[in-house]
């Protein structure tokens, strides 16, 4: 059902089996969106997320200060000329780092989430739909990866094989896919026995066709919610690994800023705090949006307000 990552845990609430019909009804965008819109926390999250994405995409063209270039003396406190959020150990502008580093941070998180989805859904769907021996084998494979401690594994691989951003994304996908696989599997298991699916099979439609055209779209809501959670977890995991020194030193990311400035925490708290806030806001808004989607698609489970 859920999977524990060592540093954080992903926890979507279990979908209610009866709600499939409701889901079918709610697939019409207006209804789900209306529900989403009424959810203030989710809207707040959405707005913040949009702002953050805008900042990372457009910001670098507006605030053109090179994050790698020194703007003056080191450890300038926030509010100093040239360094509104303070400067780091090489006198570099913290705000520039946040604006220019956002894109890569988000992309790494997104990339990791996409790969996690692909691997997880791929394996989970096949296991759930085909069942039998294939299912057992795939589940054993999944259990193998679940048993290896996630953070330690990521640390080992990145330390030994280098910590470029691509490596980080790949390793995170290797560590996070098991939860998605389980979820996909349970969804497919549940769905494959439904009437309309069985009907299609008896009509002679090929399995692949059924999977892609019918089962997958119905499983999509749950998987999408899981995906938003994964993005959040991936960003957090990336930050934790950067904190431990496993980041790409040639590209600015928020996690790398934190990791590099860690020894200077007591002298220059701003070098760690602001990137930390950026990460926090991003993960928070993604989580809120994910929650909102959850509530919008499964109104039966919505917490009474």
């Amino acid at each position, binding site marked *: 059902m859920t999977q524990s990552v060592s540093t954080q845990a992903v926890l979507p609430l279990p979908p209610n089996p009866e709600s499939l019909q409701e889901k079918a009804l709610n697939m019409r965008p207006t209804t789900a969106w209306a529900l989403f819109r009424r959810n203030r926390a989710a809207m707040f999250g959405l707005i913040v997320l949009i702002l953050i994405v805008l900042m990372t995409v457009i910001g670098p063209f507006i605030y053109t200060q090179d994050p790698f270039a020194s703007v003056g003396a080191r450890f300038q406190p926030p509010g100093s000329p040239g360094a509104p959020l303070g400067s780091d150990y090489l006198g570099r502008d913290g705000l520039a780092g946040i604006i220019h580093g956002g894109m890569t941070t988000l992309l790494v998180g997104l990339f990791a989430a996409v790969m996690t989805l692909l691997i997880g859904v791929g394996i989970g769907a096949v296991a759930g739909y085909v069942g039998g021996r294939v299912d057992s084998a795939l589940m054993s494979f999944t259990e193998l990866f679940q048993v290896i401690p996630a953070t330690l*594994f990521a640390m080992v691989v990145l330390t030994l094989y280098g910590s470029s951003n691509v490596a980080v994304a790949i390793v995170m996908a290797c560590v996070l896919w098991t939860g998605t696989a389980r979820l996909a599997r349970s969804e497919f298991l549940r769905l494959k026995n439904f009437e309309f699916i069985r009907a299609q099979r008896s009509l002679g439609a090929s399995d692949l066709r059924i999977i892609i055209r019918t089962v997958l779209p119905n499983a999509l809501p749950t998987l999408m919610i899981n995906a938003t959670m994964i993005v959040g977890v991936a960003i957090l995991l990336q930050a934790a690994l950067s904190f431990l020194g496993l980041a790409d030193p040639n590209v600015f990311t928020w996690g790398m800023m934190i990791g590099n400035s860690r020894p200077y925490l007591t002298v220059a708290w701003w070098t760690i705090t602001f990137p930390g806030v950026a990460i926090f806001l991003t993960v928070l808004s993604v989580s809120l949006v994910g929650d909102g989607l959850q509530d919008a698609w499964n109104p039966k489970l919505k917490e009474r307000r």
Partner: protein
Amino acid sequence: MTMVSTPAARTGILPSATTGRVGTLLRIVVGRVMRAVSLMLAVIVVTFVLLALAPGDPTVAIGGDSGIRDAATAEAIRVEYGLDRPLIVQIGTYVGRVLRGDFGQSFVLHQSVWSAIAPRIVPTLMLSGVALVGAVVAGTLLGVFTARRPRKVISHVVTVVSIVGFAMPSFWIGLILIILFAVTFPIFPIGNMNSTMVGGGFFEHAADTLWHLVLPAFTLGVIYLAQYSRLSRASMLEVLGSDYVRTAHAKGLAPRVVVYKHALRNALIPIVTVLGTQFGHLLSGAVVVEVVFNWPGLGSLAYQSIQQRDTPLLLGILLLSAAFVLVANIVTDFIYRIIDPRIRIRRTM
């Protein structure tokens, strides 16, 4: 959740002593253990291969800070540690030794891996255990409390806090706590598990250790707390809205009785489920927190051994953690079957 075939469907292979409930349990446990063992072997092979294929030369780690300045010495070390043999042989040797309980020598510490790991197990369990238990208890109570008052402000606050707590990087929380409560207001120690100057007997040491435990356990616990309070609240809400609870109310039972006697037990099920899955990660879940607070556990040991390329030590830690997860899974599975008579045979989560 799938239903695997019931015992009735498996015919004739095992002796009659293994039918019946106890026998069934036994057979299931044995099956699970065997499966765990094969998984363990797979883990050993995978991690060993991963470590062995990595670029870099471990003989330098053995040579120490100053590096090895002599090719002959490097070669001698390679032979002694068996690094020159083909990979398959190395794996085989290693597996053989592990099965005999020998995890090899730490490259850097020049002592056996087990003796380096052993004193670190208890501190990690202490940290994770306290954090997890504290978070579960506090989170459950918090969730129950706010579920009963869904429209009050406190409920919203708790929801917000639980989401926020989840979104904050754990090392960040730890560092902020250090700045606030160990430096600015030096109530708690900055790190480590013990102070140098604590003399005295058992109680002084225990108290000192507990005092050092507060900040790291709190840091680790916050994440769990966010999770469990949310889960508890949702679960409790669902249960409170169900038919039998409404029936109980209608029967005229006192609200408190309804909640604590009937609803809670059922609300606890998802909590226990999640707890079961997290239980296995007690040994490996605290790496970042241990590093931040310099807590002498397995996580910080792993971090240091990665930096020093101490392959045997690293392998030992990984395997121990994996083994712990496997054992924990079996144990929780077992407990479920005993506790919940409705579950005949169930694939674990």
